[in-house]
């Protein structure tokens, strides 16, 4: 990972965007505008951050009904990203993201088998098994400005879009 701190800004960004009912995209797109029924964001295609070598991708996923065009969901997400890029995250948002990340990390790695797998994966992919225990501190060093920069770098004009559309019912 060439720029770990920059990468972790995307982890914080993902949490602020879609972790829980109080997250920005849940609030704006699922609860208020009812454009989608579910939405999620994370660096990595394999289910979590740091699950790939540099470079990684940032994935935003949503499930929406056929009545809503995909572009409406994507535009609404881009709008929220633009706001975040301009204004940055709030202090409470940063604290919520860090607390949720730390508790999920501890919980996921409480079992000896999952902890061993995580240590092995950190060693194999990043050459640093000890990264696992350093992550909470590293994440808390991420600044609001870095999160805003991360949001700005997600240019909607450059993203690839995959749509999975159900076949017409026969």
């Amino acid at each position, binding site marked *: 990972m060439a720029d770990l701190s920059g990468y972790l800004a995307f982890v914080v960004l993902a949490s602020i965007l879609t*972790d*829980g*009912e*109080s*997250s920005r995209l849940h*609030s704006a797109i699922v*609860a208020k505008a*009812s454009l989608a*029924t579910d939405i999620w964001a994370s660096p990595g295609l394999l289910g979590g951050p740091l699950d790939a070598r540099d470079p990684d991708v940032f994935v935003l996923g949503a499930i929406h009904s056929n009545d809503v065009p995909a572009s409406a969901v994507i535009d609404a997400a881009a709008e929220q990203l633009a706001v975040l890029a301009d204004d940055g995250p709030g202090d*409470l948002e940063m*604290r*919520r*993201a860090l*607390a*949720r990340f*730390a*508790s*999920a990390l*501890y*919980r996921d*790695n*409480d*079992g*000896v*088998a999952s902890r061993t797998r995580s240590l092995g994966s950190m*060693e194999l992919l990043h*050459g640093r*098994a000890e990264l696992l225990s350093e992550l909470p501190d590293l994440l808390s060093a991420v600044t609001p400005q870095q999160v805003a920069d991360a949001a700005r770098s997600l240019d909607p004009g450059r993203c690839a879009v995959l749509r999975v559309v159900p076949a017409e019912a026969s």
Partner: protein
Amino acid sequence: MARRSKTADTARPGPVAADSDSADSTSGRTNGASALRTAEEIGRTAIGPRPVPPMTLAGRTRAPTLARLELDSGLTVVAVRKPRSPLVEVRLRVPFAGSTPLHSARAEMLVATMLLGTGSRDREQVDADLALVGGHLDASVDPQRLMITGSVLSTGLPVLTQVLADCLTDPAYRRADVIGERERLVEHLAISATQPSTVAHKFLQQRRFADHPAAWDMPDADLVARVGPAALRGLHTRAVVPRGSTLVLVGDLSPSKAVEAAGAALSGWSAGADARARTLTPPPAIVGGDLLAHHRNGAVQSQIRLSGAAVLRRDPAYPAHQLANLIYGGYFSSRLVENIREDKGYTYSARSSLEFWPETAAVSVAFDTTTPSTAPALLEARYELGRISLLAPTAEEVDSARNYALGTLATSLSTQSGLASTLSMLAGAGLDETWLRDHPAHLAAVTVDEVARAAASMLAPANFTGVVLGDLSVLESELRGLGNVAFA
């Protein structure tokens, strides 16, 4: 398969010893001042990786030290210190049985909406307050109980219990939230009703429980579509009650302080003196009989589900039944998996497991096959049932199953969440933490004879009923030929 190759790899001390003679500069480094090698060095030395040490028996399990407090409201609070991670795991179990399909529809809607806001917190505020302390709460329900599962950074436990108390005593059930979740749930039920495994499970429940509420673990979508906020508030007041419920806290905490603090936080959760969380009435005993075959148009795969009566956890013969189930189909090294997966390739996964209700237990066998393999796979599954019920298993089979049972129990109890879930399960089964100490000792003492007796009563083919779901236009004549199959 992987298991075997791994054994082969580790059981070759010869070449390792031979290689060490030719060790070059790397050995000089490992013999140097520091005995520590990086993972890369370990992976690259001429000696190669050291052999994996042999398995040892699971150590003796002690019952955890725990504090227990019964509140005036009838809620029991249990806390165990396990400071492995700086977290606390939370389980609130409320017996939540009903007697009508409408109850199961309302119960499903209740758990989908009960944590979405209170009189003083909207749904975003509930989540925001929990997020700030790294917490989450989720609610789920089945025919036996409502369960609220949570976890939180240990410093945030007071906040989490406060939010939980607020959701229990002053839930909002705002119309917009209820309607939104209802649409989502109806859609989810429609999607899952198209899954063959869901359909097969529903047929199995009908086959073994008929119209007993134990069968209703999937609510009826049409009934769900009629549930509104008033019905949810009514059900919450009537049935989400403390008497008979159990709150379990496990993690980085002081047990006596934690039960006191949780008791104080939840002191406002009360109900009338005669209001008691409702336990499921015992379902009828499962009676052996024909499998009922159901047609699924154009299905390329079939689902086979068998179920028979088993014994309860508190039965002295339960450990022997647990091992008999493991040997038959309860883990990857079982006879059923060896036969219909490894040897014949009829299925990708097959398993048997034990299930529990009040005063009723079942052993259940489940596997999916392609249409042409359906009847042969059923034949083999029945053959293995007959074989284990008539001929005693070997001592090696019993030891292997015993080690697996002891090892997986130790593994699951080693995590905060596993211990919390197990303690909550025990409370629901009318048992307590002494089971965690006694059960491993009982497992260790089970004899081959006891396993053979358990298998003879529980796994005899005539003990089973069940269902087959598949393309009967292809399967019917084979299944008729096999016998003990009726057609819906």
